[in-house]
């Protein structure tokens, strides 16, 4: 537990070394790192998926998940995301898993009803054959 805490502190110090002062202060005060890229505004949080907002309207565009392939403190993941977005944003999008910004309730209900329909159809066929 102490090792994990020490690792988090170390990663946070490295993040501070890397970020411009204004971005570091924003992250320290809000817990969210905001980066402006060509695909929109990225809001990177230690405890949530990265959210991408439209640069003009700030409406949610997508949620993005990128991870390191080795165990590492969460701030290391933030470092990796920050540096990749800054340097190779297209690679970031090709590699990360991208999810819709919001799953509308209506879409969810339609999906569940379709799944139920399919299930009932399978049951019906199995009864007819049996």
């Amino acid at each position, binding site marked *: 537990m102490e090792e994990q805490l020490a690792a*988090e502190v170390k*990663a946070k110090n*490295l993040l501070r070394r890397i970020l411009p002062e204004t971005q570091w202060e924003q992250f320290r005060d809000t817990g969210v790192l905001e980066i402006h890229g060509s695909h929109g505004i990225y809001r990177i949080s230690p405890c949530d998926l990265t959210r991408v907002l439209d640069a003009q309207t700030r409406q949610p565009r997508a949620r993005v998940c990128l991870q390191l392939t080795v165990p590492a403190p969460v701030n290391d993941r933030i470092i*990796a995301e920050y540096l990749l977005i800054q340097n190779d944003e297209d690679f970031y999008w090709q590699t990360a898993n991208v999810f819709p910004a919001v799953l509308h309730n209506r879409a969810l209900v339609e999906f569940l009803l379709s799944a139920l329909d399919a299930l009932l159809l399978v049951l019906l066929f199995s009864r007819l054959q049996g």
Partner: protein
Amino acid sequence: MLCAAGDKVIAEWDTDEISPDRLTEIETEFKEKMAAGWFAVDIHDKRNKLIREFDPDAEILLIPRVQGG
């Protein structure tokens, strides 16, 4: 390089004093990491620039391969 402990230093050198052999060893390790899909960024003075080739004058942060989560 980034790791479970946060980060760790795998090599430190002074370009004026390091031997060519030691520099070659460090470069070889760098190339192995790059071939395995790692990233290298020069973070000296917040330059934060991705580098593909070993630069003995850079402060290099090695980042493990990333994947969608």
